């Protein structure tokens, strides 16, 4: 079924996901073949909150397809500062571009914005909601490193507010992966995501201690626990310290465990892990370009 917008990983079927990953692999193998493919096409980028990787990789992706971007610029220098509604902003900007990419601090913002535009809109993160394009590059990395057969994934950290976690958990249900969610009690998966996983018949378990599952995992997806989620600094330090890994922690893991992280990391993965064969997070970040090229290509061609 053609998709006009990419709002939530919940709406991506296994076939949708595989078509993006297959196209990404083709592009990665021969990027020159698509260098002029979208010559003259413009991608509108609207980032209502800061982004480094997502924004740069979308920009690189569009330019490597021969197209260009028109950027809203920082919020404090835009019409948003004058009190313009999001609905009005996207209705104006859609006239400038062939597709839009938007990041916004509020949950549901991408869905609402998509209701006001006719060009395809891609959600690049809506508050603590969803981040479906991160999930596509996460899945690409998993497919390249571990494959999808009989896959057991551990997802650790801030599962409540982590939008990359919500999107990934939804998508993994389409691959019949076993999912283990490891977090402090206060940062467990939100009710909405848990509801969807149950509805999808997902095989999932929740833990507060990584040791309970580490040796069964093929992939460990680590996310950052942010200080502002806790009432005070002491509580944060105490809790966050329990969800950090280093090379010694990973001695209990399978030799071919793949460690991933959407980045930026702070101290949840110690630098000594970077030197191990487990580390895959920088490669994961690099995969953002071919995967976003594939997604943009399919969307601009109306093939998704």
């Amino acid at each position, binding site marked *: 079924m053609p998709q006009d917008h990419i709002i939530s990983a919940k709406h991506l079927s296994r076939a949708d996901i595989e078509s993006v990953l297959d196209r990404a692999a083709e592009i990665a193998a021969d990027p020159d073949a698509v260098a002029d493919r979208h010559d003259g096409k413009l991608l509108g980028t609207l980032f209502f909150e800061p982004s480094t990787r997502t924004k740069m990789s979308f920009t690189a992706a569009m330019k490597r397809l021969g197209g260009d971007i028109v950027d809203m610029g920082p919020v404090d220098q835009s019409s948003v500062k004058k009190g313009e*509604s*999001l*609905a009005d902003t996207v209705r104006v900007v859609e006239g400038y571009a062939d597709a839009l990419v938007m990041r*916004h*601090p*509020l*949950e*549901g*913002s991408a*869905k*609402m914005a998509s*209701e006001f535009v006719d060009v395809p809109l891609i959600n690049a993160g*809506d*508050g*603590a*909601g969803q981040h479906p394009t991160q999930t596509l590059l996460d899945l690409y990395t998993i497919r390249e490193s571990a494959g999808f057969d009989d896959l057991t994934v551990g997802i650790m950290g801030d599962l409540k507010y982590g939008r990359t976690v919500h999107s990934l958990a939804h998508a993994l249900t389409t691959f019949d992966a076993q999912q283990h969610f490891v977090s402090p009690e206060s940062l467990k998966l*939100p*009710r*909405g*995501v848990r*509801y*969807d996983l149950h509805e999808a018949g997902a095989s999932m378990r929740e833990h507060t201690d990584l040791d309970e599952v580490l040796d069964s995992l093929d992939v460990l997806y680590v996310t950052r626990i942010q200080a502002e989620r806790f009432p005070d600094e002491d509580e944060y330090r105490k809790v966050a310290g329990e969800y950090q890994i280093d090379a010694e922690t990973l001695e209990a893991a399978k030799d071919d465990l793949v460690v991933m992280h959407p980045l930026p990391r702070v101290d949840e993965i110690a630098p000594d892990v970077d030197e191990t064969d487990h580390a895959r997070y920088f490669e994961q970040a690099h995969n953002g370009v071919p995967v976003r090229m594939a997604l943009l290509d399919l969307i601009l061609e109306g093939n998704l």
Partner: protein
Amino acid sequence: MSDDQQLRVSKITEGTVIDHVTGGQALNVLAILGIDGSGGEEVSIGMNVPSERLGRKDVVKVEGRELSQDEVDVLSLIAPAATINIVRDYDVVEKHRVERPGEVVGVLQCPNRNCITTKDEPVDSRFAVLEEGVRCAYCDTIIRESIADHIHVD
């Protein structure tokens, strides 16, 4: 309606009798209808009256007012067993049970303060009705308890 109850709540001439409301929910029914007494509506309420079917039930009678489908939809969430009786010239001319809708639009306010529908945007709240509770179509927040607390009345 039993004779006993008719003694408690007088008949109305034109309007709606909402019967078999879950005991204790009558004031929330009025909130759904946007009735707080300031508009001069003539309203009678029976609360926690004995009921064969429900044990205890509430009854709400509103003079001169028939309910819209939206109002009935939301009513179904807090009073799934309710019956709606339309009265004209003292007679019940229509009687039906409420049915749970697929979604309710513009009536509930999302409790997630970070949801786009709670901001100054031209969009109505939209909740899918689940087997148990409702779910915001924008931010996926699920409300299971005290749905009536989230009714948004201007």
